[in-house]
């Protein structure tokens, strides 16, 4: 995937046959209320149009839902977006003794088989519930979402020798102001955290902490309270 963050997809060139499942917004508002409301129209969920044929021309933004006349007996599974609950254990976390493991693997196999047999839709964004008409899990060939940082694969390197470790220690203890953690990490191809594990510079750390504390003492009430609120908010992430 590209390095650009995910944005709303651009409108495809052929608009008549492919319904867009997101509003047509590239501007914040239009010049009249009517035009603005027109841009905000979202197609109904695919489960509403199951009575019609999949590739008919009735697929458009103005198609009316017809849930009362399904062509065949089926179950419509269209759950609203919600945060997942921790009481549902992901299949990977189930122990070997759990009978649900076999159920999950057989379900995944069946859904993969059926997914491979049906046609690929024009829009195939992974992760969003409105993307695939059957709401089954993503195809095996579909890409995973982009990693938040790095390339996604993270290989630990164990390339530093004892001589390198000794060199790091020597440089940092001699002159911690020139040989900072960042510079040593760049030089030896490791992380700053690893450099801090190898050698500590307590005097420099105390000086840096003192200057930071002096800066914090100069804060006014508003900034200090905002900082305290931020700390409390960060602590609440772990609950």
């Amino acid at each position, binding site marked *: 995937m590209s390095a650009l*963050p*995910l944005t709303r997809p651009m409108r495809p060139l052929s608009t008549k046959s492919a319904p867009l499942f997101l509003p047509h917004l590239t501007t914040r508002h239009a010049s009249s209320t009517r035009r603005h409301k027109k841009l905000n129209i979202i197609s109904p969920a695919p489960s509403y149009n199951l009575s019609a044929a999949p590739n008919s021309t009735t697929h458009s933004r103005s198609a009316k839902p017809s849930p009362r006349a399904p062509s065949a007996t089926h179950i419509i599974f269209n759950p609203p977006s919600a*945060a*997942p*609950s*921790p*009481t*549902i*254990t*992901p*299949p*990977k*976390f*189930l*122990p070997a*003794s*759990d*009978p*649900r493991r076999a159920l999950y693997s057989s379900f995944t196999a069946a859904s993969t088989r059926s997914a491979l047999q049906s046609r690929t839709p024009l829009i195939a964004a992974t*992760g*969003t519930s409105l993307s695939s008409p059957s709401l089954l899990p993503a195809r095996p060939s579909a890409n*995973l*979402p*982009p*990693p*938040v*940082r790095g390339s*996604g*694969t*993270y290989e630990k390197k164990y390339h530093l020798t004892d001589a390198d470790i000794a060199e790091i220690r020597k440089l940092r203890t001699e002159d911690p102001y020139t040989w900072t953690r960042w510079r040593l990490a760049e030089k030896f191809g490791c992380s700053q955290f690893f450099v801090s594990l190898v050698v500590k510079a307590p005097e420099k750390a105390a000086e840096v902490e003192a200057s930071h504390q002096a800066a914090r003492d100069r804060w006014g009430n508003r900034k200090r309270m905002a900082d305290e609120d931020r700390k409390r908010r*960060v602590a609440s*992430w*772990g*609950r």
Partner: protein
Amino acid sequence: MKRIRIQRWGSQFLAPRTQFRPQCPLRPPQHHLSPFPQPHSCRSQSTSAGDIFPPLDADESAGLSQQDEDVSIPPEALPSPPPSAALKSAKLAALHARLSLPPRLPIQTLARALVHESADPDPNFNNTSLAILGSNLLGLYTSEYLLCHYPRLPISVLFAAQSAYVGTKALALMAHEWGIESVAEPGGEVDPGLLQYRRLAAGAAWGEFAPRGTGRPNEQKGWRRGITSKIVYDDQFGDMRMKTPEPSQPVPLDIAAESFVRALMGATYLHCGRATTKRLFASHWLSRTLDLSKMFEFRTPTVDLSKLCAREGFEPAVARLISETGRASRHPVFVVGVYSGKDKLGEGAGGSIDEARVRAAVMALKSWYLYKPLDVTLPSDAEGMEPTKWKPNLVDLGEVIV
């Protein structure tokens, strides 16, 4: 292993039976107020006034019933009401009915369960012995429920859940819900249906007891108490075992109420047996909702998750941005999922990518620790069970240690 006959042990807690005295055949029949009719020729088990007070002369004893015996001793002289007063108490009968206690549980034992040792230090008449048994039973049933249904729960969360179910505050709250009222001052003349204890004065110190030796090696060096050592050396809540206070010392209401609830549990077990006690536990304790997912607090969830994946042999966890909105606005929303290979372990939403990533790791860890197996066989149900029916429960490796 030889089956332990608890019925025989239980009789040690009750006062010894005294010889029953024949009643005068000319006296009119007494109308007992208790809901369960007792034959006139028997005395109730827990009556033991004959042990403490000197025996009456042979002439007077021939014509006396148990009610007339107590008239000679003024109730104000006794530290707690005599057991015979239990039959006349409307509050006690109402409590017995309100809790739907089985008829086999005598009303006199219920009255005894309401007497704390601060009101009456005599162990034959207070609830201490029943409370010890009941406390052990509550601890057993709660801990086996939590350990069998949530095998991966971390130890600190286990302790917190245990105290949420059967801790002092929980039991005191239950006693309040059951409508237990307490006396202003204990004595023999009070209604036996009230909780009797000597109340601690407002503002007085409580809880500063010396810890008694826990048995840890090198305890005198003052080392930090490790979490796993609390299971071995400390009590069911992970707290250090303290020296018990003097029996006559005034106590807060919570302590007295807790002793009643525990004593009721012990009394039910002794009089009615294991099945009834388990039913009582299920209806009063297991019916209470405890949201275990809210009892976690992770300091470094991303580190914990990566260690967990390394320990279990999963591919390293990678945070991936599933969707986002409003990145350039005042209130963005990012949805980040933590993936191990192609499998999603957890998902979190937040106002920044960091927050969403951390919340996703927290969700993944919670779904690991809150795993609940489908079938569970409780050890306390194994008594009398056929050996083929026992299915071993999952015993987990333990929490992730960073």
